[in-house]
């Protein structure tokens, strides 16, 4: 498959500004006077969405998980559960990728997807164990829009999920109270960034895509969930979203 034909899956979930043309915007945002930068940075992770949006409702798809989940983001447990939800999504996706290995990816790609599946399963199981009784239940996912036999579809969605993960952890950092949890988020986000770099370079090996900007994005909770929503069959409600 030609790489140029492979971006559709990514474009379905990539927000405006992610594509190559967004680099400049991001650069400009960061390259002005420090006061402006700091102001921009301050406002970057905020959300303007309604206080308690409901995502994933009334969709068909995989039904082995909960029908509905509410995540209360008023404290660290909620933020860790939010991360747990994202790691569930990534682990489920890569499990599908490895089980339906597309052709034409070469030796490194097969190893990369095998490794990343392991990492995301480990992240998921780590959060489940660390949260214990406070953990949200298993979520249901809907990957019916993805052709897992098409290399471009898989790489595009994988890149979108990794970019989403990086921006989600970066955006959540300032709302984490417990320093140990902040460090854990830091330990995971750089691995997600390594994934994003690797997937991007396999997808578009142009010497630039592996790190499309000098400063990664930091997204707010509602924005993150809205991007993940097309793939989540469980109705996820966020309450007390900090901003």
């Amino acid at each position, binding site marked *: 498959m030609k790489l140029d034909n492979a971006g559709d899956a990514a474009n379905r979930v990539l927000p405006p500004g992610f594509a190559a043309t967004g680099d400049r915007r991001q650069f400009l945002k960061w390259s002005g006077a420090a006061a402006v930068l700091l102001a921009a*940075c301050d406002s970057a992770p905020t959300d303007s969405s309604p206080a308690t949006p409901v995502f994933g409702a009334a969709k068909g798809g995989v039904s082995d998980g909960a029908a509905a989940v509410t995540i209360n983001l008023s404290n660290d447990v909620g933020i860790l559960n939010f991360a747990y939800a994202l790691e569930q999504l990534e682990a489920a996706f890569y499990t599908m990728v490895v089980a339906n290995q597309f052709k034409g990816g070469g030796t490194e790609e097969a190893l990369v997807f095998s490794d990343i599946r392991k990492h995301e399963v480990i992240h998921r*199981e*780590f959060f489940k164990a*660390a949260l214990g009784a406070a953990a949200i239940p298993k979520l249901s996912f809907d990957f019916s829009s993805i052709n897992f036999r098409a290399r471009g579809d898989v790489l595009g969605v994988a890149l979108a999920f990794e970019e989403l993960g990086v921006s989600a*952890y970066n955006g959540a950092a300032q709302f984490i109270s417990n320093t140990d949890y902040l460090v854990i988020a830091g330990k995971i986000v*750089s691995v997600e960034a*390594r994934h994003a*770099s690797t997937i991007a370079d396999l997808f578009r090996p142009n*010497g630039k895509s592996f790190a499309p900007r000098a400063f990664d994005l930091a997204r707010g909770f509602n924005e993150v969930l809205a991007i993940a929503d097309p793939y989540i069959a469980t109705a996820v409600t966020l309450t007390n979203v900090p901003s």
Partner: protein
Amino acid sequence: MSIMNLLGGIDSESTTNRRGAIARGGQLAAAAVPAGLAAFARRGFAASTSAATPTIVEVLNFALTLEYLEARYYIMGVDSGVISGRDSRIFTTIRDHEIEHREFLIGVLQSLGATPVSEPTFDFTAGGAFAPFSNYDTFKLLSQAFEDTGVRAYKGQLPNVQSNDTVLTAAATIHSVEGRHAAEVRRLRGEKGWIPFEDPLAPGAVHAVYDGEGNLVQLGVNVGAFEGAQAGTEAFDEPLTMAQVLAIASPFIVG
């Protein structure tokens, strides 16, 4: 001399020396910590030994010194012509990012009313041990060491800037970009983009850049229990303290 010998050896040697220096009254040997580093290096070592938390300004100047090092390394590397043709775009991308980080941190420090540290003088041969600007393999080796150290350095400072949401978010968004750089350079060298338990530069050896990366216990959870120990170590990057980072960087900083 190989990097693992140099970094590993210098780590243990300089740690010993500095412990002695600190024990003798907190003065660091001039040869060990050059002028550009001295102001915050003392604070850094003091923090590591007395549990004092470095200030936000000290953390920013620490980060700025690392960005000076990285930016200068890639500026010199790109100018030297040592980089093979198809990889030149990769390293100009990284160079441009490090320059942006450097200028950003200078701006933040000035906006806080603080004085940014000035750029140190670097010796990327580390006293003649390396020839990164005439040997491309060496160039990539040191690049990997600097990038993986950078990831670990920022990670180690996140708690020290937690009180300032703006600085924390900025540090986090630089931190993950360093992770992207590290993965790309590692893959150029035929390594995995992530750090396995085994020392990726010197299998079987432990040295400063990857010291502690084999940790398998996160918040009391054994993360090696799910998909094996190697994947467990790969799935979590570990922080370095300011003192550990300075021990790695010091051989390349001459004044």
